[in-house]
């Protein structure tokens, strides 16, 4: 049973030369799973994630044949409907915790506020419990800290914890670990992984890192120039058919690669058609 169902999602922005589609006819279903959306800068992966929450920045516009969340048609959602959905049933984690957390409020105050908005019965103790759920051991210190007093990994964990206060059914994570060191990255991913498994949450994981996505997600959508060029199970990545996916995989420097020039991507015009 799918939580989110998207058909022919298109996001457009006006430019001097008319409207340009940055996302074109993207379709997918999200169940209680880890869905990866991979692409390079400008591929439309982030705009896809934002459109799911109705957060396409103006003057951009999103339209779709179908955009359902749990049987509800999001295309007709009013401001009040969105308030009931955003943060409560679908949450979003952005790349850099520095920009998503309020710098002049303590983590605890922000979490309690997030909890109140989400209608949590006992925000203070839920905040404490959620921080422990994301593997923060000294939860009390973190609750009393301001964002700048936390390291990147700790801030991102606090951010995830805040999003989890309302126990959302879907989490959209846009490059949640890209600003983090690799060793911290793995720890944050482990937390997300547990949440999907233990709470049956649906996760949309947006990233530029094909290797990371392929090892973490169940399914991968590969985006190029606003389109999904290939959809495949993460385990089948080595058997990818689309030359773009293959090229993206091959051009990564790896420890076990023989020295010599890296294969480069020979972009074909028909990929973008």
């Amino acid at each position: 049973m799918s939580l989110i169902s998207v058909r022919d999602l298109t996001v457009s922005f006006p430019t001097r030369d008319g409207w340009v589609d940055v996302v074109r006819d993207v379709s997918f279903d999200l169940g209680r799973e880890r869905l990866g959306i991979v692409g390079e800068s400008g591929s439309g992966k982030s705009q896809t994630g934002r459109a799911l929450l109705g957060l396409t920045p103006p003057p951009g516009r999103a339209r779709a044949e179908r955009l359902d969340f749990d049987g509800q048609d999001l295309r007709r959602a009013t401001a009040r409907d969105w308030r009931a959905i955003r943060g409560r049933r679908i949450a979003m984690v952005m790349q850099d915790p520095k920009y998503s957390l309020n710098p002049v409020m303590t983590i605890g105050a922000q979490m309690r506020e997030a909890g109140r908005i989400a209608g949590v019965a006992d925000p203070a103790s839920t905040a404490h419990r959620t921080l422990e759920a994301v593997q923060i051991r000294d939860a009390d210190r973190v609750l009393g800290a301001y964002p700048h007093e936390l390291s990147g990994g700790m801030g991102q964990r606090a951010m995830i914890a805040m999003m989890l206060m309302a126990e959302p059914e879907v989490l959209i994570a846009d490059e949640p670990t890209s600003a983090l060191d690799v060793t911290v990255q793995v720890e944050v991913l482990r937390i997300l992984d547990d949440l999907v498994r233990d709470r049956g949450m649906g996760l949309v994981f947006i990233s530029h890192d094909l290797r990371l996505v392929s090892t973490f997600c169940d399914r991968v959508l590969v985006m190029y120039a606003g389109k999904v060029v290939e959809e495949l199970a993460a385990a089948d990545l080595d058997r990818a058919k689309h030359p773009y996916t293959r090229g993206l995989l091959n051009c990564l420097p790896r420890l076990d690669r023989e020295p010599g020039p890296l294969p480069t991507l020979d972009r074909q015009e028909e990929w973008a058609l």
Partner: protein
Amino acid sequence: MTLLSIQDLNVVFPGKSGPVHAVRGVSIDVTRGESYGLVGESGSGKSTVLRAVAGLAPVSEGTITLDGQTLGRKRDRAFYRRVQMVFQDPYGSLHPRHTVDRVLSEPLAIHRMGDAEKRIARALDEVGLGQGFRFRFPHQLSGGQRQRVAIARALILEPEIMLLDEPTSALDASIQAEVLNLLDRLRVERGLTYVMVSHDLGVVAHMCERLSVMEQGRVVETLTRADLRALRATQPYTQRLLAASRGFTRADPVT
């Protein structure tokens, strides 16, 4: 033969809440013609080592020797003919109001090198941009193209040593491959020596013959490329980096 030697380098920055000891007793010898990697996570001091060599960070203790000559507190103009640097952020390392032409001609003017026209044309060709890019502003270039301009700017003074501070970490994977290939080719063609900083073990294993792993301002381990590829790391921190570079693993591997 050692071209660049760093002995017992310490860098201390004055901070708001007391001094910050960014680099603690780092010693590295870089041989002429080799490519040397510095690997570590943020805050490990790897970039600070590069900046100290370049004269952009204060040397609190220790010595830096270039070709047998110890460098003083102030770098002279001749030093910059021999050592150049490429920065991480292609968006921040080019002046937003200067054309590529101005970026490339200014170092020539500073060092009173003749043949500016020919040198600029050659530099642009060498980094694979060509003459069509000469009069563009940075906002008319993509990230990869900007980084090529930054490489051309460093090359135009014909240095011996290039300090590369995460030159590809802000680029898309496919662009990264192109820029790494370019750097590799230039090193062979020009006999350059590289000191490259990166957080990505894959990139360093591809580019560098030797590398030092840094953690909290210290070198914890020095490896050859063969060691790295054979996963012969002795320090737990290096092993964790190696494990993380393979991506996500569901169950912790039993080691």
